[in-house]
């Protein structure tokens, strides 16, 4: 991507702030939902090749549970929430009380799946609405889709738009984790992958145009 060469550190800072605000709101929402302490990491903005992206969650073949939604509107892109299968199972069990809920092999428990989707809705919705508030951009989320599959197969969906302009992606990565005392109960990654043309839109509404 040619514009990658023109990116300045302050552009990356702006993107980091989006990850910060978005995941911050999502973490708060999840914390209220589960009545647990949720911590979030400092967001990382990375320019990664397509091969490297699945590496961030353990490799292309790693089995993960993921919520995916397309962002439509003024700054389109893709948003993923990716977590280990066991971690999602744990959250759904806590939330629904269905102790037998599993995502290892279908058929899955319907109520559990709908709870999983609702968690996705809440997490993604709060991430996106704070992104939209921060930038004053009109953004609409698609209905979230969920999948339990290989990380490479899932993440490649977020790369389709980007792959038309280059071989690397800018990923805004924020981790959240649930802490119970010192013990880590679950963690998940938010990946925000703006479409190529969205960067200019985001930078210009935030007053850090490409040519400043």
């Amino acid at each position, binding site marked *: 991507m040619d514009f990658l060469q023109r990116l300045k550190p302050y552009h990356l800072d702006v993107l980091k702030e989006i990850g910060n605000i978005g995941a911050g709101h999502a973490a708060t929402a999840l914390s209220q939902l589960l009545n647990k302490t949720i911590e979030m990491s400092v967001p990382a903005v990375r320019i990664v090749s397509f091969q490297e992206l699945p590496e961030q969650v353990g490799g*292309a073949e790693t089995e993960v549970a993921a919520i995916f939604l397309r962002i439509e509107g003024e700054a389109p892109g893709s948003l993923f929430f990716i977590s280990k299968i066991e971690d999602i199972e744990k959250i759904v069990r806590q939330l629904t009380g269905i102790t037998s809920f599993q995502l290892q092999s279908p058929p899955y428990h319907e109520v559990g799946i709908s709870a999983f989707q609702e968690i996705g809705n809440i997490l993604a919705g709060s991430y996106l609405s704070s992104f939209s508030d921060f930038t004053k951009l009109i953004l609409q989320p*698609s209905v979230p889709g969920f999948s339990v599959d290989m990380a*490479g197969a899932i993440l490649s969906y977020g790369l*389709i738009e980007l*792959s038309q302009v280059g071989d690397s992606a800018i990923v805004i990565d924020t981790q959240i984790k649930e802490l119970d005392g010192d013990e880590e109960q679950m963690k998940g990654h938010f990946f925000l992958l703006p479409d190529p043309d969205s960067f200019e839109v985001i930078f210009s509404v935030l007053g850090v145009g490409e040519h400043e």
Partner: protein
Amino acid sequence: MSNVIKVGMAELNTVGPPDTIRTSGLGSCVGLVLYDEIRLVAGMAHVMLPSSSLCRQARPNPAKYADTAIPALLKCLEEDGARMFSLKAKLAGGAQMFSFSTGNDMMRIGPRNVEAIKEKLNQLRIPIIAEDVGGSSGRTIEFDPQSKKLHIRTVNQGTKEI
């Protein structure tokens, strides 16, 4: 000792026995294998998009698009001693991982990749011996040029050989 040659997203490579060639985590992407059964040379491409007309890049990567990956793969295979007339094809992938009711064409990218590859193979008169395409599962595939078998692993549908 045999090695496994890895092919990443939007890459291609060739292989000869005893080595095998593999690509991981195919979703909507398609893994295409072309092989010469007599000379035992094979090549694999991990195709992401159906057509290079979608490209907005100054220097496109030919392995990424169905219409350019096949000629590029043929060129590598010829350099490795494969003969055009004895090439056969096997393919896997092109799944639809997420189903959305909104009619975004990009979400149908898997089936479109498969169609584009088949069309190109048909033009070049390369027969498709076996395929495992579509569905909603990710696949990891590995081809052995000696046995000419394509091993396919999925998370929920088990493994198979075609």
